[in-house]
């Protein structure tokens, strides 16, 4: 099976009075269906790597093949199209839209695919069911617990049927029990063939991935 992600010599330097080399010569690949974890201390460049993989940030140099296409030099509208159709994001602090229902938030996941609102809602119900929240679909997200909020966020990321699910500290705001449940959910998705990259500084989270990379000062270290 060919690699979903192939990264070679990836660098990301933040310019400024004191330039920060957040990524240094990162080289790795992720096969379709893998669940890969990246661990490392705070400030080691994990989020920067994830943002580059998610086409939200542009690496300073290096190559990046996503599903075998070179995505480094793509114009912004094509990168946006890939984010809309191929990539799902899960954030540490959920990034849900307050004042809206769980269903509304999940339906937002595919809004840039130009699907009809009614169709998007239908799909959203399926994914809310998948994360075990079909009974809460009409609840405003601010009334949900932390674990429930993260489930809504995962359902939203899945709603665009992404080939790549990127999770930045998905359990960072949750107690260990709730975090555990979220990880089980991700494991279940992976079992269904979903490719997942998780960034975390928690080794116990990383341990549940199929593969782990360590990260230190912008450099990918040992593959565990």
């Amino acid at each position, binding site marked *: 099976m060919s690699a979903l992600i192939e990264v070679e010599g990836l660098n990301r330097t933040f310019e400024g009075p004191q330039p920060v080399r957040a990524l240094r010569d990162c080289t790795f690949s992720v096969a379709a269906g893998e669940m890969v974890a990246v661990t490392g201390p705070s400030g080691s460049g994990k989020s920067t790597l994830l943002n580059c993989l998610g086409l939200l940030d542009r690496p300073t140099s290096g190559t990046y093949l996503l599903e075998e296409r070179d995505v480094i030099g793509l114009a912004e509208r*094509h990168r946006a199209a890939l984010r809309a159709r191929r990539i799902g994001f899960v954030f540490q602090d959920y990034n849900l839209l307050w004042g809206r229902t769980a269903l509304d938030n999940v339906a937002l996941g595919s809004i*840039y695919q130009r699907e009809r609102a009614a169709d998007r809602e239908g799909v959203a119900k399926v994914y809310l069911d998948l994360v075990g929240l079909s009974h809460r679909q009409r609840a405003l997200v601010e009334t949900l617990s932390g674990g429930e909020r993260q489930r809504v966020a995962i359902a939203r990321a899945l709603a665009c049927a992404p080939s790549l699910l990127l999770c930045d500290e998905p359990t960072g705001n949750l107690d260990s029990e709730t975090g555990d449940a979220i990880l089980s959910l991700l494991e279940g998705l992976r079992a269904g063939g979903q490719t997942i990259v998780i960034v975390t500084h928690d080794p116990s989270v990383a341990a549940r991935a199929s593969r782990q990379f360590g990260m230190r000062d912008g450099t990918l270290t040992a593959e565990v």
Partner: protein
Amino acid sequence: MVPGEISKDRTGLRMADLVAEAAVGITVKPLRSILTVVGIAVGVAALVATVGLAATTARVVSERFDELRAREVTIVANRLENLPSDVDERLAVLPGVEVGGVLGPATSQSRPVRAFRTGPIASVPIIAATQGGLAATRPSITGRSLDRILPGQRVALLGGDLAVALGVRQRTSPTTVFIDDVPFTVIGIIDRTEREAQLATAVVVPASVAVEMWPDPQAIVLIDVEAGAALEVAAAAVLALRPDAPGSLGARVMPEARNLRTDIAGELNALGLAVSVTVLGVAGLAAVATMMLSVLERRREIGLHRALGARPFDIGLRFLAEATIIGTFGGVLGASSGLIVVALVGTARNATPSIPAWTPPVAVVLGLAVTLLAGAYPAYRAARLDPIDALRG
């Protein structure tokens, strides 16, 4: 390099989603959106009201003016002796004539006039008139007019302002004024006229007396005619007054006063427009501030949308859509309130409200344009936000 699959699959927001998302965006801070709408509405309403009120006023003024002018005929002879002594009677029998007679300066220059022997001297224009000529100015008179005056009887009517200036008003007993030191009995005071406003500061004496006293009183005949009869009366009056030599008289019919209407409307509009455009401008600046604030507050939402696949263009478009909704509400609300104001004021003043048909639609479009202009910079800033910075909040 770009796979065909990507370029073929269009991304971006459907129209319905764009409108729905913009509507939700506005209702997140309802009070703020309402205030922005009200600001734009006030500007638009001011615009509509000024144009409407100016048009209504101009119409009232010029309708009254037009009406009077169209109902006026003036006839000029070289000398007063050229006119028969029974001008009033000859005119009265003509069809279309309400009333008419002599009314013109008795002297080429103002004359010294004083009330009582010792009163202050004023330099005053003297008007020679017959009863019909005076009546044609549509005067309101306290006392008597020039009817039932014997030929050669030295009587006078004082203009209202002049009477006050001479101190005649305060006296109750019959008064005498001295014109060129010749005594005249004051039989009445002309409080007001609808035509020939200069009578307010003049002395009116009988034409028969003027002919005797001064060398060359001007021979002017003023006729108040029925609406639409001016031309007819002008021709007939010349014949009636001098059947022997109608060519010796010149008749004048007032031209249409339509130009005046636009002039008045134009002047009133210029001032009102300046004010309302300023109001609209201020509302626009306020809208820039509130929309900028809303962009700053919604950075995370903007970042999320970028992660979900929004292009910078989609983000900008979304804020412009919000501005469009606010501007449309503001424009429609403003135009309607402006129309209501015009209708209310018009009714209160007993005038038919009048407004150019283009005003409401143009005002709505202007309100929308101002809001879009105000939203352009915030929308641009939102579009240019770095998605990662935005996601961090």
